[in-house]
């Protein structure tokens, strides 16, 4: 059995290499296979367009969103003291879907045209997702960990109920139209545009850096609110700040790429098992990297799995998740003595 220290060394070395390989494979492989020489110098316009306009922004999105999901998962698991918590525990995902449906309704009913019509869905998904997080953070934190989880459940139920009603309204207006915002439910990395990549990066970089800087507060929270308070740290405020910080890039990613499941719960577990460490200062940033790895390769698989089709990304991460959840069940390692 390889020692944990050696594994850490290998991981440190392998991770950037694997990420680079994933990036390259995503650019070359797909419905149209691009010759790898094109990565350096490309004479054919067709290949240049495929790489630069289609595949590169989507692949970069998978790296960024994967990182955000990994970091959020690690933060939520620490803040809620629960190894099964995940980025969407606060209900932000279902709220974003509700926002997307509202945006779609606005386009249908309000007659929005031009750039407004393409922006309506993601902007409202972002707005509603973020607002729900603020509500959960402000109200739920006061009740402690259980309060946050309960608020998340409340938001999820409310959002689903409202979404059902909205879908009925949309159907009654135009029964034949296919509901566009469904991409929100299944996750969609294809079709991500360059400006969306910039917005995702702009929202992710500062917030993630701040979270990593604050990661030792997550460790302190894990020991209990009393211990934190005695050390002069206000656990309610720390939870608020951490959840709020991760909600921003999460809401942005949800708006553009939809709900991508399993990554946020898998990545921190993998990091904890492989490194043998539990501190947020290690688990948070590395969960981000593992999240990027998982999502980049999942994106690759989703595009080459069935020729001519792009499998919804959550299906791929779900398939990848099954053996991992089985490993989790067999191996345990959740901490509670059995």
């Amino acid at each position: 059995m390889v020692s944990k220290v050696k594994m850490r060394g290998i991981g440190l070395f392998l991770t950037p290499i694997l990420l680079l390989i994933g990036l390259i494979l995503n650019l070359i492989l797909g419905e149209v296979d691009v010759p790898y020489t094109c990565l350096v110098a490309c004479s054919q316009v067709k290949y240049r367009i495929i790489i630069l306009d289609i595949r590169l922004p989507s692949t970069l999105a998978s790296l960024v969103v994967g990182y955000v999901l990994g970091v959020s998962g690690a933060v939520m698991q620490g803040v809620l003291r629960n190894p099964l918590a995940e980025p969407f525990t606060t209900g932000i995902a279902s709220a974003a879907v509700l926002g997307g449906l509202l945006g779609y309704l606005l386009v249908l009913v309000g007659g929005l045209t031009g750039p407004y019509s393409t922006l309506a869905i993601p902007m409202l998904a972002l707005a509603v997702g973020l607002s729900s997080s603020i509500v959960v953070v402000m109200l739920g934190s006061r009740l402690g960990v259980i309060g946050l989880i309960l608020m998340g459940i409340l938001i999820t139920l409310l959002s689903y109920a409202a979404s059902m009603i909205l879908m009925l309204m949309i159907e009654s207006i135009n029964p034949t139209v296919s509901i566009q915002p469904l991409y929100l439910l299944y996750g969609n990395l294809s079709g991500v545009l360059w400006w969306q990549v910039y917005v995702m990066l702009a929202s992710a970089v500062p917030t993630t850096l701040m979270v990593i800087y604050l990661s030792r507060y997550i460790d302190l929270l894990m020991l209990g609110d009393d211990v934190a308070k005695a050390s002069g740290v206000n656990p309610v405020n720390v939870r608020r700040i951490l959840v709020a910080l991760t909600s921003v890039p999460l809401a942005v990613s949800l708006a553009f790429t939809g709900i991508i499941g399993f990554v946020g719960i898998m990545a921190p577990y993998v990091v904890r098992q492989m490194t043998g460490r539990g501190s947020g200062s290690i688990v948070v940033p590395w969960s981000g990297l593992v999240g990027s790895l998982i999502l980049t390769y999942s994106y690759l698989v989703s595009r080459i799995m069935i020729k001519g089709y792009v499998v919804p990304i959550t299906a791929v991460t779900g398939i990848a998740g099954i053996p991992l959840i089985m490993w989790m069940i067999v191996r345990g390692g959740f901490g509670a003595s059995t």
Partner: protein
Amino acid sequence: MHPPEPLVEFKDAYIGYGSRVVVRGLNLTVPRGGLTVLLGPNGSGKTTVMRAIFGSARVIKGVLRVNGTVSYSPAEVDGLVNLTVLETVRTARRGYAWVNNEDAVKALGEVGMLSKANVRLSELSTGEKRLTMIARAIASNADLILIDEPTANLDPGNRHRVLKVILSLITQHTVMVATHDVDLALLANQVVMLRDGSVVDVGPPVEVITEENLAKLYGVSARIMRNGSEVHVVFPMHEKP
């Protein structure tokens, strides 16, 4: 030259949560140095008194003055904590900064947990978890170290280890312990006996730990047996209170 101010002063304090009073009419002064023991059955309000000191419980009426930094070591740490022993100790704060690695390692050495520095908290025995949290308190260099139920649920070996550590702590820190372990109370400078939120007695153990007080506290008859310099407290089964 006037004597140094006490670390903690409760003056006729009523402590509780919201408007609910849990501890009534507490008068207690904790001087610098030494061991103060809060002795009483489960639910008597010992933890609430400690919580008031760091602000998790409210002083509804009366006065509480705290003149120093505090570190709290709870009776139980949540079972799902994934931190290693060293990572746990490194969550100690010194003022506005986290404790550095060197001081964390030193504290672990003092409690004899250095060999398990990279073991996860969840894989430790209860006694070792408590020792880790005590190491954390040492690392924080707090003026007052609060330890909640250090010997509860421990086998004799672990209990011995923890008691030894607490005894060595007293030489360099001010310590307050909440416990129902009478032997521990015998080692204190002052004992506060609590029952149902009321103070039964306060004072040095020699005065306070009497068969009468113990019977009042626990509702069972107690026997104090002296064997030279050794003192043993026994709660015989067959006697009626």
